[in-house]
């Protein structure tokens, strides 16, 4: 049980100023609780890889982000309060732009321990001109042109999963975006999970393990840890409030004050949401018509 931590401990032990941080979940199951905690602890000079990241604006707004490796991200400073706030703090991030496959390949090369990986995408585009992690190369067998994508090895990766055992054998299902290469490339790994289960539950369906225990540094049990995103088998998302409450500068300031720094942890955040939306709010997000798979059979 030595790996089981509070979220506060897990973040302060494993996310350090200057780190390159991989955030899993292309919307699906993104670890919102952990991101709020990083903002709360004001861990700075981060380089972020977080595809379709929504709550990443909190980190940008707080001036904590030096660099974004990105495929899509709000970059219109004129209309984006988080970027404006970063600018006012003199902490405007650098954006290194790829396609989503490009980011995925950078992480895959990281996972594989190779310095780069070739692709046929990005070629002919201006992404090649501005992103220093992309360059032309040629196949040593055929001579054909390829784009080389430089490996990214995150210092720390954070994944939120449906279940994990106390050792960190974590299982996630549903659409997996860039979760596998990202979390497996990361040198340190934080698992936040809806529920810590007996290892027996994991071992009766070992194909679902997305990262095994020896790769995991901290395990945090955090129900609704991905809210306001959705998580397969657990709850639907409801992102409109978050987007509305962080769009205008005065709202964003208030959100940071009241819902990040004004709260001690994610459970207080969830209580806050209930106080705003009603006692049954979180319950109402839970899956209404669960679909159950047949059991996966193993044994000998």
């Amino acid at each position: 049980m030595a790996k089981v931590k509070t979220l506060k401990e897990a973040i302060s032990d494993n996310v350090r100023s200057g780190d390159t941080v991989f955030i899993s979940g292309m919307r699906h199951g993104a670890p919102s609780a952990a991101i709020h905690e990083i903002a709360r602890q004001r861990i700075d000079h981060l380089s972020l890889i977080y595809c379709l990241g929504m709550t990443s604006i909190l980190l940008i707004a707080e001036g904590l982000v030096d660099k974004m490796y990105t495929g899509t991200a709000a970059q219109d400073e004129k209309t984006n309060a988080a970027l404006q706030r970063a600018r006012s703090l003199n902490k405007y991030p650098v954006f290194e732009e790829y396609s989503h496959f490009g980011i995925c390949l950078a992480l895959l090369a990281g996972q594989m321990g190779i310095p780069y990986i070739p692709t046929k995408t990005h070629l002919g585009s201006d992404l090649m001109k501005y992103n220093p992690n992309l360059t032309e190369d040629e196949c040593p067998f055929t001579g054909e042109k390829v784009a080389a994508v430089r490996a990214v090895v995150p210092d720390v990766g954070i994944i939120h999963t449906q279940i994990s055992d106390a050792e960190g054998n974590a299982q996630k299902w549903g659409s997996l975006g860039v979760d596998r290469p990202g979390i497996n490339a990361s040198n340190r790994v934080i698992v936040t999970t809806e529920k810590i289960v007996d290892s027996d539950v994991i071992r009766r369906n070992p194909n679902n393990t997305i990262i095994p225990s020896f790769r995991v540094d901290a395990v945090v049990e955090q129900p609704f840890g991905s809210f306001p995103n959705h998580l397969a088998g657990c709850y639907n998302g409801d992102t409109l409030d978050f987007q509305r409450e962080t769009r205008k500068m005065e709202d964003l300031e208030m959100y940071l004050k009241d819902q990040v720094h004004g709260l001690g942890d994610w459970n207080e955040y969830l209580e806050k949401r209930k106080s705003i939306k009603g006692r049954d709010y979180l319950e109402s997000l839970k899956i209404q018509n669960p679909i159950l798979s047949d059991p996966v059979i193993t044994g000998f």
Partner: protein
Amino acid sequence: MEQGRKSPGYSAADQMVVSAARRINDGDVVYVGTGLPVMATYLAGYMHAPRCVVILEVGIIRTSPGLLSRSIETLETQTMSDSLSDLFYVSSMAQHGFFDLGFMGAGQVDRYGNVNDTGIGDYYNPTHRWLGCGGANDLVSCCPKTIIILRQSKQRFPERVDFNTCPGYLDGTPGAREAAGLPPNTGPSMVITNLGIYEFENGEMVLTSIHADAGVTLEQVKAEVGWDLKVSSQLEETKPPTEEELFTLRTKVDPDGLYVDGKRAAPR
């Protein structure tokens, strides 16, 4: 700009979605971008292409049309898929050439089909910024055919994009894509807007159909293009949406009215 509102029965956005849906053949494996492409693909699935395969970049592969939702990635979109994989798997299959058709939106598209999802003006000091391409570069780099769907305006149809996020036929010279290293026999095949339909001849966009029934004229189209537009000698009038198409769009594809006039009713 509100061309395309002559007929009370449908909007220009309806025409755009319906025209796009018709381009999907039954059984096609379609790599679908967020927004209107999903609407059009689901419409095709409910109409003439029940066996088309819907591929979403997050790893969703489904042969039953899903429920449209506010975002491309929700539990509705995932549920009862044939396969839930990941972006690596889907993009690998695209890069290998296993897909039939890509289907994407765009910030701008130029004379040679190059798409700008990045910015206008200097890269480091743009006058306008989009979000970036997400998976769209991968899609148009790899798919044998790609349909680009967007609302048309002169600003969104420049002669050359300032930033080429998703390569079309580059400078339009023959073999330019192959010379850049892109896979052979790929590239944008069609652009569908609220005004008309464009195809590519020798790497250049050519108007092939006008949404005439919706009240669009050739002059209107030309006014919203940033270069001297080529018009096909076989220019057609777009077949307007059928009642069945409109009924299916409103009752099955988007019963909750998540999309209004081709735009999301609420932020993504």
